[in-house]
């Protein structure tokens, strides 16, 4: 089962993401919790891509979700500046309030809610592929 869609590097496009996830929810009968996790992963990664892109240059971001058995494969392809989120350092979540920073928190959350990450730069495009093992009820 596969869903794919294209958005532009504009934060208002997050609404398109929500519409697509609603289609997914109905078609794949996902639990509220699983859907919220998938949404967070995509939201954080796409927001990051958009915020790191050149706002003056419009470029598309292609997103696909493929479900095979218990495995969900998410692929995000964009023609923005080279950026490998798999190299991002995780924030220290044990620091006291005064020393806490928010940098890297989005990527960190996306990692926590998914299982395997692969990054590739090909033909001037960032290609991020990640896998999420779905809970039993979705297999």
């Amino acid at each position, binding site marked *: 089962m596969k869903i794919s869609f294209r958005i532009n590097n504009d934060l208002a496009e997050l609404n398109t993401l929500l519409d697509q996830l609603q289609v997914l929810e109905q078609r794949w009968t996902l639990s509220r919790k699983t859907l919220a996790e998938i949404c967070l992963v995509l939201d*954080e990664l796409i*927001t990051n891509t958009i915020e790191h892109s050149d706002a003056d240059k419009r470029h598309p971001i292609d997103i696909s979700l493929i479900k095979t058995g218990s495995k969900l494969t998410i692929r995000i392809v964009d023609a923005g500046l080279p950026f490998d989120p798999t190299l991002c350092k995780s924030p220290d979540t044990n620091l006291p309030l*005064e020393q806490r920073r928010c940098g890297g928190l*989005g990527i960190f*959350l996306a990692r926590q809610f998914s299982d395997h990450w692969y990054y590739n730069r090909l033909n001037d495009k960032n290609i991020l592929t990640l896998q999420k093992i779905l809970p039993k009820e979705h297999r």
Partner: protein
Amino acid sequence: MQTTITKADNTTIFALSGRLDSNSAPQFEQQLQDFLREPSTHLVFDFNNLDYISSAGLRIVLNTAKAYKSGGYLFSTCAMQEHVQEVFEISGFDSIITIHRSIDESLSAVKQKK
């Protein structure tokens, strides 16, 4: 996202409903400007109807907690839905932000402070 602001007893309650993400965060941050600059009442974020929070929302919560750290006023959050609470816990925010189970708990903490 919708924000309902209630003021009572030297406490301002922001009741959020919907989604706090990078799309809605700037507007919420704007509403909080005066509180972040100089806290002048206690502040409670009521998350009872908040379905979703991303790192953009966490950033605002963190900045608010920092603004309230030094003054004499309390800042707390309350009534989180399961997924929102999970995001707080994974980020380690449950150890730096006050989280109450209900708005009543938040309000009685304020009363005890007086």
